[in-house]
């Protein structure tokens, strides 16, 4: 497993436990005791570390390569998943995965950023950074969901929209603007979960939802801590300070009223227990949808629009 800097003391203990297990043939009581003692220490250390993760540490956790991605959630939670492709204008953007499927038996439209999990898939998905085609596909499919009365689930996990010549030439700004507009226009239940990184315009393009959930150690920000540091501190070194100042954690954003709910992660973060994380999000999505589904399309649309208009009219309590 990929070990984050601040996880090193934990990982060292775990290494020791592994070693001891190899030494013993299972019958040695002393070694078993020692393993038990060390395991308790690991749990304690994990609990202590994760209870007070700094915003910068959360940024690392949110970007952890072994954190479950959109593709993992879809594979585990969506049956009959049927990918749909293309913006009907220019191309298919694999940075955004989307399609129809069933969540707990009911048809839904699922749309999410996919970062990829190894070199090949990361390149294929452009590291989760979408071009205009991705946002135009999302828009087309949100409209389709609205047309058929199907709830929309979006999973946000992106460093941001792709900054490239081609993306600009084909109207990245317009594509994002229209995607936000469509988010705020559809007449169906709409739930977003920020599952890792919610990066700037590329994130809000899929996240102007009735209910916005965030995984406990995910982040959501107007700019990356590194980008903010290089502009306001004139030094990438200050990313740690920028992460603090930006209030990008789920806990801060919940206080600000930007996020409606926080989905707990397993001890030690989503990457330590992917299955438990996926089930935890599943329960939260189900609860959120349960509240929205009985409401009429007009009410859902109005509720969503009013929520965003009111946002930020009062500051941090």
């Amino acid at each position, binding site marked *: 497993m990929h070990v984050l800097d601040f996880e090193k003391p934990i990982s060292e203990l775990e290494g020791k436990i592994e070693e001891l297990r190899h030494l013993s043939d299972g019958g040695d009581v002393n070694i078993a005791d020692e393993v038990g003692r060390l395991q308790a220490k690991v749990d304690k250390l994990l609990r202590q570390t994760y209870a007070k993760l700094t915003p910068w540490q959360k940024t690392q956790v949110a970007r952890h390569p072994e954190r479950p991605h959109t593709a993992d959630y879809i594979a585990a939670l969506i049956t009959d998943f049927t990918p749909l492709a293309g913006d009907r204008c220019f191309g298919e953007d694999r940075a955004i995965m989307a399609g129809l499927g069933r969540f707990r038996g009911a048809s839904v439209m699922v749309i999410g950023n996919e970062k990829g999990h190894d070199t090949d898939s990361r390149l294929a998905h452009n590291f989760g950074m979408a071009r205009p085609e991705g946002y135009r596909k999302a828009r087309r499919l949100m409209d389709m969901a609205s047309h058929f009365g199907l709830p929309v689930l979006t999973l946000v996990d992106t460093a941001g*929209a792709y*900054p*490239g*010549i081609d*993306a*600009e*030439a*084909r*109207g*990245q*700004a*317009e594509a*994002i*603007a*229209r995607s*936000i*507009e469509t*988010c*705020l*226009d559809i007449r169906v239940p709409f739930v977003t979960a920020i599952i890792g990184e919610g990066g*700037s*315009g590329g*994130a*809000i*393009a899929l996240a*102007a939802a009735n209910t916005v959930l965030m995984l406990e150690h995910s982040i*959501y*920000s*107007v*700019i990356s801590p590194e*980008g*903010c540091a290089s*502009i*306001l*501190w004139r030094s990438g070194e*200050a990313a740690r*300070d*920028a992460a603090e*100042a*930006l*209030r*990008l954690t789920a806990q801060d*954003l919940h206080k*600000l009223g*930007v996020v409606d709910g926080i989905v707990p992660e397993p001890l030690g973060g989503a990457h330590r227990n992917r299955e438990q994380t996926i089930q935890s999000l599943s329960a939260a999505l189900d609860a959120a949808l349960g509240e929205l589904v009985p409401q009429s399309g007009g009410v859902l649309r109005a509720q969503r*629009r009013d929520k*965003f*208009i009111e*946002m*930020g*009219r*009062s*500051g*941090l309590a």
Partner: protein
Amino acid sequence: MNWLTNYVRPKLQALVRPKEVPDNLWQKCPSCDHLMFHRDMEKSLHVCQHCGHHLRLPAKKRLEMLFDDAKYQRIELPKTPDDPLKFRDQKRYADRLKDTRAKTGEHDAIIVAHGRMGGINVVIAIFNFEFQGGSMGTAVGEGIVAAADLAVVQDAPLIVIPASGGARMQEGILSLMQMARTTVAVDRVKEKGLPYLVLLTDPTTGGVSASFAMLGDIALAEPGAVIGFAGARVIETTIREKLPDGFQKAEYLLDKGMVDMVVPRRDLRATLIRLLSLLRNRNAAGDLLALPVDAVDA
């Protein structure tokens, strides 16, 4: 919406103002180095007489240029929390705000005004680039919301004129949320069948470009204005390539189909009035609706 009553009795602030004295009598054109005397600059609407380069036009000058007889009424905007995150980089954001307010005499980076253009009642929300690069935080978002609501109440078209580097980073996620807020706001205008026009001026980038600025029924741009989502430097460092000439300029966007027209400053007022009268199918005052000089020449 009780604050809407403020609009019915707007404060008359803008009609009488002391004349500003320019800091420099001479200004150099950033494009061709031509030196321009300030009075000539005024006369040419801050367009270089030598090469036609469009320099940034201060917001209030632009409002005078656009409204009939240079007359308009400013709207007092609803107050929003200052420094909602208690943000601090090398300096406190609260102090930066204080400084900028003292320097510019403005509360934030947006001015909302209404008045007549070619006799048509119009609401304009214009960015003040001199206020922290026209960056969009909660106050700016509130300005767009107020302008849109005023347009609906007055049954008037809305023109928004961005000049902004993007989001106000010091307001963190709340600046990002303005993208959604302003989108809802301008949609309210559109839903009423009222024209929503956007005039993209230099620069219109980041979160501003990727929300209300790209949602106009008609998009106009000023010559040479930089318009785009990602900053040129970010793109260069990402792709490690030189950017093509004219990249993200207004003319490039026209060529790529992202704006309807690039309009020289001297033709702006007449063009906007013509568009508004066409969209609302009104009889227009002929003299105000003459074709732009370029079109006549061609």
